[in-house]
């Protein structure tokens, strides 16, 4: 019997929502890690019961949690009593230290709000992206922007410092939400190809497994930076790909919905008839590579739906032509936001679409967006939603 497990990260804990393939009746488990900010949880495509979670707090910093049984039990990987020869604990599962070795070609500073150079300071893990083939390998996107990788199931993390060492690094600067690496997309056809995006630096691609990186922002135009089509400085909000067509990327930028047909080498706008092209999440239908979903938000200073109507927009033509999806969604007095990692799709047939709001609702559509029902209504503000299809 097939089913779905939806992993929900919120400002005050994690929740796991499960249902059978009909996606009508749901069981809600949680809060897990109550009181902590759960920026992201994601399961391994190679072993769906292996789930990684980013747990953080302004008081106590970053913790990485791992479940090997589908979220029933959790542990800090490597949290046992192993010690170094000096007698100190060996666990490093929450240790994210920027590479300062000569081989890492590291930078030590980036641009700060006042124009001075500022040291990189680790704050939290925004996004966890498990390898498509190895349950023990996971990439982590962190603030201040950098990418780390574990190959031992989360026990130790090492920076892929070539990204931060890119010559444009000193020009990167934080947006209002901080300088975070929030998007990691792995190419299923090429294990050496990785796409990432940083607010507010832009998107980058590696073709050698993360050793070296190039900016892929040609075609982006951002009126909020001095040179609107600069190599870096764009506030990319999220990138999505369909696994059958890894050269085609869709992007929700601060403003503008964009598309690339050459793996990010160039982008063109596909906002088309959207009522506003500001937004955060973007995702692709599991079975239709040309069907794309966004949630338009009024503006960069008014982070809520236009006219108080919560509308998901779907394009079945790979952009430009968009239709509002409203059935089951509030069409008055709705002023929530949907954050960048808070939308996901399952791979059942018909495709299920999920998104969570800052008002604590998690909506499900079991018919590819035609109609929606809330699974839960009153969670803490939702930071991330990841759907796992269980077969």
């Amino acid at each position, binding site marked *: 019997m097939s089913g779905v497990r939806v992993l929900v990260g919120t400002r005050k804990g994690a929740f796991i929502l499960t249902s059978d393939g009909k996606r009508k009746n749901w069981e809600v488990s949680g809060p897990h890690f109550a009181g902590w900010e759960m920026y992201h949880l994601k399961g391994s495509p190679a072993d769906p019961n292996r789930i990684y979670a980013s747990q953080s707090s302004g*008081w106590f910093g970053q913790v990485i949690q791992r479940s090997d049984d589908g979220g029933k039990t959790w542990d800090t990987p490597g949290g046992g009593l192993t010690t170094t020869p000096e007698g100190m*604990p060996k666990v*490093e599962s929450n240790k994210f230290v920027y590479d300062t070795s000569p081989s890492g070609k590291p930078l030590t500073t980036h641009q700060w709000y006042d124009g001075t150079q500022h040291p990189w300071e680790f704050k939290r893990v925004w996004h966890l992206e498990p390898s498509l083939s190895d349950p023990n390998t996971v990439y982590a996107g962190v603030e201040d922007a950098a990418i780390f990788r574990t190959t031992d199931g989360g026990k130790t993390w090492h920076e892929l410092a070539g990204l931060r060492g890119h010559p444009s690094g000193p020009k990167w600067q934080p947006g209002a939400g901080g300088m975070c690496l929030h998007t990691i997309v792995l190419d299923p056809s090429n294990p050496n190809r990785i796409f990432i995006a940083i607010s507010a630096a832009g998107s980058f691609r590696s073709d050698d497994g993360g050793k070296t990186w190039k900016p892929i922002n040609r075609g982006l135009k951002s009126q909020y930076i001095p040179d609107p089509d600069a190599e870096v400085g764009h506030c990319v909000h999220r990138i999505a790909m369909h696994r059958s067509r890894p050269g085609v990327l869709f992007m929700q930028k601060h403003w503008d919905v964009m598309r690339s047909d050459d793996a990010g080498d160039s982008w063109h706008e596909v906002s088309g008839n959207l009522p506003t092209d500001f937004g955060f999440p973007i995702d692709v239908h599991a079975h239709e590579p040309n069907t794309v979903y966004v949630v338009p938000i009024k503006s960069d200073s008014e982070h809520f739906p236009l006219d108080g109507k919560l509308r998901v927009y779907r394009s079945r033509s790979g952009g430009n032509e968009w239709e509002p999806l409203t059935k089951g969604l509030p069409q008055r007095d709705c002023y929530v936001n949907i954050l960048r990692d808070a939308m996901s799709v399952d791979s059942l047939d018909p495709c299920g679409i999920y998104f969570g709001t800052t008002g604590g609702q998690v909506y499900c559509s079991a018919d590819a967006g035609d109609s929606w029902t809330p699974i839960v209504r009153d969670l803490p503000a939702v930071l991330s939603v990841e759907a796992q299809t269980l077969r």
Partner: protein
Amino acid sequence: MIRIVLPPHLRTLARVDGELKLKIDGAVTQQSILDAIESKYPMLRGTIRDHVTLRRRAFVRFFACEQDLSHEPMDAALPDAVVRGAEPFLIVGAIAGG
């Protein structure tokens, strides 16, 4: 035995109830207490003080005997009442909204 009170979130993370009671050889200082905590509960490494600099995290405070010891040198001797186990060493999350 040195008595230590962790904030609730760290008790959950370390899977302990109530006070910690740890034996510390040598001088009883903030540093030796934190070393002992992290040795016994490695999942707490990085949550009270930074992994690399070993500096106290900004929103964590150390209290004992009705004093704020957060800004005292890490290797300074702690009050005798803490050393004798008459008073606990308190690790506290700073007051904040949210």
